[in-house]
């Protein structure tokens, strides 16, 4: 450490990592005023600060888009890779092998993930890479000025774009179909829930899909539009509240849930997510329930939010590969180059 650091001064409040909230901020946003993406960035800052995350143990990823610019607006002290449009998953998958102690935080858009990125999105879920994957979902391509994305509702009418003729992609339904181990949805207009879900997702080991409806104030904000504030406010149907408690002893979820019951899901790091069940005994560990709830929401055009599904048992990608304890990218020639004597054995095999 050197004095040139933007570290917390004497009488600034710091967290258990010894850092001030400032140490979690990024550059000033260059997004539109009132863009849903901005409030998400600030919730990321708060969540990381409150979770005492060490910025250097996190790596930021994104694709291309307004949403994908966000990583510049938080965690300046973390490495970041603003990759190619729709290709964040593959870059993150490779990068996370370098140091299995690192957690990935990816921010993508609905175009970046559900249009051009559909293939890689589906396959990173199959592999259960250890990262928090946020989709800032506004139903349009913001950065290219408002064309429909793959999550725009069928029949949605935008001034410049006309009517969207195709069926929308439901990010959470896709995540379930691909056996993602953590599937949640929130709404940028509900910062409290966003933050809670961010914390839960960070504590999950494996892929955590967080679909956040994030209105594009500039190009997709008419009253009738699914991704607009207006829409969200009326139709939002909170599924269950979540409040985060720092690591304690594990508690395993039992079967059925009763009305109003409080339920805890234990994460791999031992930390706990407390679920307050609002409706019909919803059990987020029941994949079938999740499909039902989403299907029902789709039929009724509801905006279902909350922790929809979680499976804490599947090993994360790098765990499957049984890697050495030292981060791979700190291994040296001694570990990596076979000994000189081996070359003769090899040549003996060449016949």
């Amino acid at each position: 450490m050197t004095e040139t650091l933007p570290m917390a001064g004497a009488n600034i409040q710091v967290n258990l990592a010894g850092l001030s909230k400032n140490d979690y901020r990024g550059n000033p946003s260059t997004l539109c005023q009132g863009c849903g993406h901005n409030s998400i960035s600030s919730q990321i800052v708060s969540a990381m600060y409150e979770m005492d995350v060490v910025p250097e143990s996190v790596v930021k990823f994104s694709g291309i888009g307004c949403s994908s610019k966000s990583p510049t607006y938080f965690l300046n002290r973390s490495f970041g890779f603003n990759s190619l449009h729709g290709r964040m998953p593959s870059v993150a998958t490779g990068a996370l092998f370098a140091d299995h102690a690192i957690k990935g935080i990816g921010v993508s858009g609905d175009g970046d993930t559900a249009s051009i990125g559909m293939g890689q999105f589906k396959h990173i879920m199959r592999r259960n890479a250890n990262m928090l994957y946020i989709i800032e979902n506004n139903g349009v391509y913001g950065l290219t000025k408002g064309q429909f994305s793959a999550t725009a509702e069928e029949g949605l009418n935008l001034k410049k774009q006309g009517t969207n003729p195709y069926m929308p992609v439901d990010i959470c339904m896709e995540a379930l179909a691909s056996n993602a181990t953590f599937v949640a949805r929130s709404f940028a207009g509900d910062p409290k829930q966003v933050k809670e879900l961010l914390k839960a997702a960070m504590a999950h080991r494996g892929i955590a899909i967080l679909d956040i409806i994030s209105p594009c104030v500039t190009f997709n904000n008419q009253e009738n539009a699914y991704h607009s504030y207006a829409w969200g406010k009326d139709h939002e149907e909170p599924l269950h509240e979540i409040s985060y408690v720092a690591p304690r002893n594990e508690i395993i979820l039992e079967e059925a849930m009763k009305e109003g019951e409080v339920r805890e899901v234990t994460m791999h790091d031992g930390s706990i997510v407390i679920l307050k069940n609002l409706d019909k005994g919803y059990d987020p560990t029941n994949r079938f329930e999740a499909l039902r709830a989403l299907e029902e929401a789709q039929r009724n055009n509801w905006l279902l939010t909350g922790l929809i599904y979680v499976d804490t048992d599947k090993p994360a990608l790098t765990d499957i590969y049984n890697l050495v304890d030292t981060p791979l990218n700190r291994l040296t020639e001694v570990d990596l180059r076979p000994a000189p004597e081996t070359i003769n054995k090899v040549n003996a095999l060449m016949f």
Partner: protein
Amino acid sequence: MVNKIINDFSITVGTVNGSGSSTANTTILRALFKMGIPVSGKNLFPSNIQGLPTWYTIRVNKDGFIARREEQEIVVAMNPTSFARDLASVRPGGAFFYADDIKQPITRTDVMTYAMPVKALVRKDQTIPSDFRDLVGNMVYVGALAQMIGIDLDAIKKALEFHFKGKQKPIDMNFNTVVAGAEWAKTNLEKKDPYFVEPMNKTTDLIMADGNTAAAIGSIYGGVQFAAWYPITPASSLAEALNDYLPQLRKREDGKHTYAVVQAEDELAAIGMTVGAGWSGLRAMTSTSGPGLSLMTEFAGMAYFAEVPIVVWDVQRIGPSTGLPTRTSQGDLTFVNFMGHGDTQQIMLLPGSADECFEFGWRAFDIAEHMQAPVFVLSDLDMGMNQWMCKPFQYPDRPMDRGKILWEKDLDELKGSWARYLDKDGDGIAYRTVPGNRHPMSSYFTRGTGHDENARYSEEAPVWAHNMDRLKRKFETAKKFVPAPAIYKTKGATIGIIAYGSTEAAINEARFQLEIEHGLKSDYLRVRAVPFTDEVKKFVESHDQLYVVEMNRDGQLHQLLTIEYPEAAQKLKSIALGDGMPASARWVREGILEAEKKNVKKSVKVSSPKKKAVKKSAASRKSAKPSPKSKKGAKK
């Protein structure tokens, strides 16, 4: 009987794809190699899994010329479908072996024919389970051949022992059939053709390897840590060899892994993962061929621009498009050179032998990490999938070069003050850090967008130009680190030949023929990398007549040399042919002779002479030029 012709002929075996003849063929190849005779084996197979005709050609040559040859002195026909074609392909005076259950007319009198009772012999041996008969049946022709041309049965036994890793049961089952075949031949066949083998000592200190395996093992000695790939012929066996050899060569007490090999969902993901891994400090590679390479274009441009070290093996097959997945080519050179939109200059390595595939396997990582750039290694199907005689793999002669990378202690010394894209040393190469570095000043933001020396986004014109000029400077620096060409001189040479990759054998043979039969002496430079090093420049400057020989249609190396050395443009002539077949000495020789005749500039490259060359080699490939057929024909 005519005088013997010893250790100088070709054997082609025609079988059905999927009938398991490869064991038999490699057994013959290995036995000959064990006898000390220079050999090569080439598999001409269809893009199909089972049922279509496939051929395996073994060239035996006492002088060590092992390139493909158009003539077949000995042909073994095991496939009814290709029987007629196989019979027609025997050189007059040659030998034709065939399974006697194929009841087809022998239409030639100018070749010696030997019918082999394959099925009968196998059925005789009760120890062979019925469902193994077809497989083992192939050993009958091994035995017959051995007997008739004089292959040492001990050598065959050794080959089988190696092949079956010492497992006695299959060794015996197969060897007995070989012996049965040999004995039957001994008592029933009369040798009427002149072709024989005799032991030599020309293969001592040599090994037999295919380029893909060599590349994989070389990569392992280069310390590969991450490989992402997607299956594609002819590159798959490279990644699969990583899976085969990594566990042995990088075994540890704790049984844990120092590497990860990921089969990606496609090539965009394969190179994307590789870029992620290379960016975060792993020695990362991917391997593919034409179609997959095209899909990697966007990431290739980003890796160049964001300066991410990765290694990409392109085992070339013939294109454009899906082309012929099982035919070879050198057709990706110009594409890779300009790969990616915008101003892009890619580094290419061009191995010319299996042992060079091994060498470039580890060197590619040193170059990539030193240059902080993608490195493309262009091999091809012939080099990658066929068995080549070559020098043993040499243990790396230098420590790993991890390039300019800063860890915590370095940053402490620098008091955390550094800039990702600052050309501190004037060589165009800046310093980098990688994720996992816990120093609070270590991080930076990587992007494919314009950036200043501190990796900050910038739209300023001079900032953009400044960065792009540095990248160009960096490419100049690369000339000092990429492999220098291989140069072969002849006293009194009047022409220079420039080539690269797997054509080496054909070119050496052609040079020999040109000198002996035509008194035309040549120097030969084999390019081993782009950018071209000073040695290439000197060679070009010091010759008045230069022929650039390559296996593609458009003369791609010729084009790159023309761009690099405009002052020499007029003396550079292109000898180019891309038809999917490995180069033969004949077309190299004929191409040069024709060019020598009409010394009109570039005449060779574009039009008629070249087309003639095509027809000739075509003819020599014993298959008629196609003639327009009616649509009806198409439907039958």
